[in-house]
């Protein structure tokens, strides 16, 4: 420091803040902003990279799935069931007393508004992780017409809710949105 500034020599503004205080605060603030801008990319590089993010969501063409049919696909290395419910199956799911279910959820809560016929769930039984039957043609759909897990006999209804057997919760509905009438994005 070239000069020693004391309270006597300091030129105090009317507010009591010296010009040097202002310059110090401004300089430290500027350096702090620069430090944050420097550190940000060094920390951000630890976040999921673009190739990982690209794998985390899939787009599925559902135009070929007729009413009453369903398909199996995979997402994040896990099976996904996409089912086009019939009117009867929707009516059956809505007729159930939700309060009496083990994992109370309505069909509307598990589907997208306006597209209640598209039931999209993980094909992983919530008991011990087997792949339930019922998605492919000719497979046993269980006592409630939805999915049936052959490992320990969990029965899921037409909204893929657990109705009978050891599984504790409904089949998981992954985050999804309809990009158009025929394409759904999962994840």
């Amino acid at each position, binding site marked *: *420091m070239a000069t020693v500034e004391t309270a006597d020599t300091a030129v105090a503004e009317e507010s009591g803040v010296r010009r040097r205080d202002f310059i110090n605060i401004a300089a430290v603030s500027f350096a702090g902003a620069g430090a944050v801008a420097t550190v940000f*990319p*060094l920390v*951000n*590089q630890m*976040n999921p*990279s*673009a*190739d*990982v993010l690209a794998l985390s969501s899939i787009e599925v063409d559902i135009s070929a799935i007729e009413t009453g049919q369903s398909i199996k696909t995979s997402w994040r290395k896990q099976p996904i069931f996409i089912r086009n419910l019939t009117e009867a199956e929707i009516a059956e799911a809505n007729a159930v007393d939700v309060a009496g279910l083990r994992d109370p959820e309505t069909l509307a809560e598990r589907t997208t508004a306006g597209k209640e016929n598209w039931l999209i769930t993980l094909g992983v039984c919530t008991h011990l992780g087997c792949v339930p039957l019922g998605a492919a043609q000719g497979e046993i759909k269980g006592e409630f017409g939805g999915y049936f897990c052959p490992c320990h006999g969990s029965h899921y209804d037409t909204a893929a809710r657990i109705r009978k057997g050891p599984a504790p919760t409904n089949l998981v509905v992954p985050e999804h949105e309809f990009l158009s009438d025929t394409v759904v994005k999962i994840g």
Partner: protein
Amino acid sequence: MSFPWAKEYTPTTDFGQWMDKQLPLPRFVYNSVGAGYPAPRNLNYMWNFGSMAGLFLVIQIVTGIILAMHYAANAGVAFDSVEHIMRDVNSGWMIRYAHANGASFFFIAIYLHIGRGHAKCCGCSA
């Protein structure tokens, strides 16, 4: 690097005194580059290149360690891992360019720093 004739580091706030007792890092900075390290009046801008070389060394170490986290030193996948850094890793392209250009600037700074010591006179008053 503290000198008996230099200005002593005296923290004024309670926190400053507590910090100086626990971990005298501010004292170290003060005695190295602050007012506790008096320097001749006739230093010119050529004296910046020493700390600049030190800064570039830190940049090379930090970016180099980060790049090593994403690089695969295997002839079969090395090229792909570099492309992965350039395309996929967040800010990876900037970290790699900082490492490449930082190497060049490290040499520029270090040569000017050495040259400043060897030159007979580089703007000093002598």
